[in-house]
């Protein structure tokens, strides 16, 4: 696997070891991009800071909590509302963000008094919320504010509240990944084991590394509940603060995003003997295998089989409709950390897309190992790319679509490459069987958008045809399909609803008698 040197980065020679091309005879021992290192000066990274990783990715999806940043408003503002981690309590944690609004005078004279006033004010403003997380930022870390002491003072004065302190300022790691690590360890050290849960099932799990983007967690929770499994806590999407304090009582940790949350699973295994099962919630076959494995662990595999059979019968014809129209299209999988390996193989197998590149902004070498192992030969794998490298890769690889975040996504649009938001989604959820079809539909809509096709014409120089009329998506996507496929009644377009989560929240679940 040769390293790949970008023309635009020849002036930053250290970048060379951050990209490789997967060759036909290569394996992971031949070359692996470097990863999880400080961004090289001169390379304009697209990463977030360690505070962002702790607060925005992991802390704030917790739903019944006031999340307050101790620092300037900018830190909080920039880590607010760009990820759609919804919750079933009217999105309290998504609608509001809190900051202590530290100014220059506080840097000089200290901001502890300000912090205490803000904590009390926030609890008074939302008296129904009794839990809080506080995040350290660069400025308040540098002046040495003792957040733990202030939090303890407030807890002594207000015995009905509980506060978690996360000491992960922006400079506390090379990227947001440093913050994931810190908050995982802080949570297990400070909070796990503090609450004893009511156990209602013989089968009890923590669902870990799942952030309920547009309802992903609720889709998976639905499957687990249909199987009679008690999900003690979700770390952390749509998760509840007190449930997450009782993680130590689960029988199994079901781990989805190992990049952001393997740390707490590893610690729960070492400290409490709870095994860790890594799963994939995306794609029909990986999801089916994952549900089977969880069922098998508890000896209730037939309950998983029933779900798999029902869901596959309902949704497979719709997935196939999109597969026929997406096969052979080139895709760059450029997400943050874990989705490159969650999607690399299954998107090829189940949607027919050819993955021409994988990249990760903050992944570690372990993520690249998984991603490269799962993608096809010829793919370009890049660690922490800068904007110019992203552009160069797109010009060279000519993808039909890229899946990435909103910053590189907007850059892609400018050179007329359609993009889907891999972090916050477009019309998710993407997990579950139906979710996977919704994902295929979004990819289809992006690639064959008639508006996008028009954008290929440059009105400053191209001849603009005025005799063809308006073309629909189907006219583009079906142009070269065989007649039998076009008219097949065995396949159909997506027929689900706009909002598939509202109904799930009202659903009633079968009672399974508890044996023990």
């Amino acid at each position, binding site marked *: 696997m040769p390293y790949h040197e970008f023309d635009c980065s020849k002036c930053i020679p250290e970048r060379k070891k951050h990209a490789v091309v997967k060759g036909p005879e290569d394996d992971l021992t031949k070359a692996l991009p470097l990863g999880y290192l400080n961004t090289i000066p001169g390379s304009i990274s697209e990463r977030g800071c360690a505070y962002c990783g702790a607060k925005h990715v992991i802390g704030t999806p917790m739903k019944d909590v006031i999340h307050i940043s101790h620092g300037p408003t900018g830190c909080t503002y920039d880590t607010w509302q760009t990820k759609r981690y919804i919750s079933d309590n009217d999105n309290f944690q998504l609608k509001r963000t809190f900051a202590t609004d530290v100014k220059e005078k506080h840097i000089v004279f200290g901001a502890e008094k300000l912090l205490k006033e803000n904590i009390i004010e926030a609890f008074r403003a939302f008296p129904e919320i009794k839990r809080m997380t506080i995040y350290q930022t660069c400025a308040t870390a540098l002046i040495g504010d003792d957040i733990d002491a202030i939090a303890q003072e407030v807890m002594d004065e207000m015995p009905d509240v509980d506060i978690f302190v996360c000491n992960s300022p922006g400079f506390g790691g090379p990227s947001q990944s440093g913050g994931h690590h810190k908050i995982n360890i802080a949570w297990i050290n400070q909070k796990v084991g503090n609450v004893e849960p009511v156990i209602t099932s013989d089968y009890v799990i923590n669902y870990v590394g799942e952030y309920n983007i547009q309802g992903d967690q609720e889709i998976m929770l639905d499957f687990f509940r249909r199987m009679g499994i008690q999900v003690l806590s979700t770390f952390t999407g749509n998760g509840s603060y007190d449930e997450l304090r009782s993680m130590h009582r689960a029988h199994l940790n079901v781990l989805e995003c190992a990049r952001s949350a393997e740390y707490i699973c590893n610690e729960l295994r070492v400290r409490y003997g709870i095994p860790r099962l890594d799963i994939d919630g995306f794609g029909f076959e990986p999801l089916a295998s994952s549900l089977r494995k969880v069922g098998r662990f508890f000896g209730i595999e037939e309950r998983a089989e029933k779900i798999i059979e029902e869901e596959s019968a309902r949704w497979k014809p719709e997935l196939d409709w999109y597969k026929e129209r997406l096969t052979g299209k080139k895709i760059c999988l450029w997400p943050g950390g874990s989705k490159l390996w969650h999607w690399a193989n299954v998107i090829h197998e189940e949607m027919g897309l050819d993955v021409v590149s994988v990249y990760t902004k903050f992944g*570690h070498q372990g993520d690249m190992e998984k991603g490269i192992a799962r993608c096809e030969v010829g793919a370009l794998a890049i660690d922490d790319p800068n904007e110019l490298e992203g552009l160069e890769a797109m010009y060279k690889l000519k993808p039909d679509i890229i899946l990435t975040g909103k910053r590189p996504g907007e850059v892609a649009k400018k050179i007329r490459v359609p993009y889907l938001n891999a972090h916050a989604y477009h019309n998710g959820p993407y997990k579950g069987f139906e979710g996977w079809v919704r994902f295929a539909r979004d990819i289809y809509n992006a690639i064959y958008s008639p508006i996008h096709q028009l954008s290929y014409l440059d009105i400053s120089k191209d001849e603009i045809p005025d005799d063809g009329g308006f073309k629909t998506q189907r006219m583009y996507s079906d142009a070269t399909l065989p007649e039998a496929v076009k008219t097949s009644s065995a396949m159909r377009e997506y027929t689900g609803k706009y909002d598939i989560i509202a109904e799930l929240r009202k659903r009633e679940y079968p009672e399974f008698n508890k044996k023990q």
Partner: protein
Amino acid sequence: MPDINEKVAQLENFIMKKCLWQFHSRAWDRKRQNENILGMTAKLLCGEEVDTSKPEDKCYWVDASYLAENYRERFDWFSTMSNDEIKELMQALRERIDFVTVDGSLNEELKDPRY
């Protein structure tokens, strides 16, 4: 009929594309996972009993039984092999996975003494 190297390559490819257990974060984690999961897979393929009384073992067994089932389903040459041949093949697979994920791995984080 593929030779043992071709068989190992096919089995390795399945693990790499479909599994996640081989990529835990530290060298000792990976060795432990490889030993337990591939060890149990070998036993299951030979029709031997495995002990799943401890939660940890049950979790290994979940991944091992998934692997064993898929191997039997996808590679029909398994049905023509004796138990001794299966053991020899699985030993070679274990050595190969240990090499790719640990001993020959370029992942510098594997040596980190802490999680």
